[in-house]
């Protein structure tokens, strides 16, 4: 009954054509334009981009924050995921639901909360001045720390979800067995848990790293023009200076970074085994 290929293609093609016209084509043109200069192919756009110290700073900062956020998410994620899989099934469902919930809430709302926490009259500053640690409020907003915290809160759930589903697949008695054989917790983690969950780590790591690279709202609200990241820089270039070549270059860099991160993580995951 399902041997008619033409019928199958007819069903699948609307979606594929739509995505091609609305997405592949425009994005493709945009990316290719970053390789054009005065009517011929060139990489001048990239050379110019990296010649600017500001751009280099923004690039390195984006990379740094991406790695930091992904790394912290992995550490917290392992601890949290390990606790979650050790809960009773009922409690596990509840806690898992609470981890998933933030993902469903508008990132604007999620980021805005940090203004309330870190702002001049926010909780932290109220506490600091209240305790007399400082007379004037400290600037916490528009710092890398603020962006880091915002991004971590935004993407940590993705890491926890990936690690929980990876850990659920660890056979039940493996960890006690390793303990009985005399392995320290340290050894259990590196010799047992990590190898058995590396697939989840790769997925979670890619999601968090890519998410942190390409988030717009968090750096825009918590970093502003003081702490530019590639996405906010791209927006500025287009909106303030109509510079579409730079926009294409940044777009290309973002895509290359995401793919490289994914490949690297996969590579690490396979060589470790």
């Amino acid at each position, binding site marked *: *009954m*399902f041997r008619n*290929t033409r019928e*199958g*293609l007819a*069903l*699948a*093609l*609307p*979606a594929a054509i*739509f*995505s091609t016209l*609305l*997405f*592949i*084509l*425009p*994005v493709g*043109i*945009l990316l290719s334009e970053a390789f054009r200069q005065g009517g011929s192919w060139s990489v001048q756009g990239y050379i110019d981009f990296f010649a600017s110290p500001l751009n280099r700073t923004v690039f390195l900062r984006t990379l740094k924050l991406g790695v930091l956020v992904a790394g912290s998410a992995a550490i*917290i994620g392992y*601890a*949290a995921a390990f*606790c*979650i899989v050790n*809960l009773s099934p009922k409690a596990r*469902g509840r*806690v*898992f*639901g609470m981890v*998933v*919930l*933030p*993902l*469903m809430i*508008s*990132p*604007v*709302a*999620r980021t*805005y*909360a940090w203004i*309330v*926490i870190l*702002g001049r*009259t926010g909780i932290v500053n*109220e506490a600091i001045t209240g305790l007399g640690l400082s007379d004037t409020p400290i600037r916490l907003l528009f710092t890398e720390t603020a962006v880091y915290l915002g991004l971590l*809160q935004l993407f*940590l759930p993705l890491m*926890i979800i990936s690690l929980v589903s990876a850990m659920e697949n660890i056979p039940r008695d493996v960890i006690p067995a390793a303990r009985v054989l005399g392995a320290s917790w340290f050894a259990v983690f590196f010799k047992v848990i990590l190898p058995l969950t590396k697939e989840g780590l790769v997925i979670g790591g890619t999601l968090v790293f*890519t998410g942190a690279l*390409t988030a*717009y*709202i968090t750096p825009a609200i918590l970093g502003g023009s003081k702490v530019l990241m590639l*996405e906010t820089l*791209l*927006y500025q270039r*287009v909106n303030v200076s109509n510079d*579409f070549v730079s926009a294409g270059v940044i777009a290309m860099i*973002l895509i290359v970074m995401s793919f490289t991160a994914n490949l690297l993580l996969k590579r690490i995951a396979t060589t470790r085994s």
Partner: protein
Amino acid sequence: MRHLANWSILGLTLLFLIGPFVIIILAGTSAGNNLAFPPEGMSMKWYLKVFTIESFRTSFALSMALAVFGTLAALVMGIPAAYALNRYDLPGAETVRTIVAAPIIVPGIIIGLALLRYMVVPLDVTVTMALFMAHTALVLPYAVRVVSSSMQNLRVDMEEAAVLLGCSRMQAFTKVVLPNIRSGVLAAFILGFVTSFNQVPVSLFLSGPGVRTLPIDMLAYMEITFDPSIAALSALLAFMSLAIVFIAERLLGFSKYV
């Protein structure tokens, strides 16, 4: 002892993830005119004010319409595609999958910019139309993925049985396949709705006079005003998501589809 350690790690993690929402809800109840925490007195005035701001009302309506119709459009294309990818041995199946999944991988801001430059401007497409198409393209991968996974456990011979009992192919789909993937379709709708409604980067460049999605409008408002109304609105949006997720979880055990 182990228990205590477990729960304190979880408690801290959840505090970090959920705590900010509690704070934002409280910040919205401030009686003062400036955003502060703890709030200066208690009142519901900012929660009420949100409803009177005209631009929020129009942008909320636009975001709602985009989320509903964009997701429906994505399902109209996504369900047949998921069906075809599951049922037929298509020569280009991998290519189709990659193409459809692509919008997830590429940063949203680039999609918005590309659409602005190569569709809205040269083809004279209205911004609203471009937003609608962009949101549809964005939701499409989720629609295909979620519907696919709910179709995977559905045996082909059920459809064959239906055909032998007199169904046309279309009837077999509507009478046998669709009722059995209902919860997957519903989950895809909810996930698509939430994704579209909360989407910022794609819509960033796709705004025009009087045409702004709610999150973009909130960003614009924040730049000029520093009062607790954004906190109140954020809290309301959080409650909306909470309600959706709660209902979805009750109805379908939603978290397994995320």
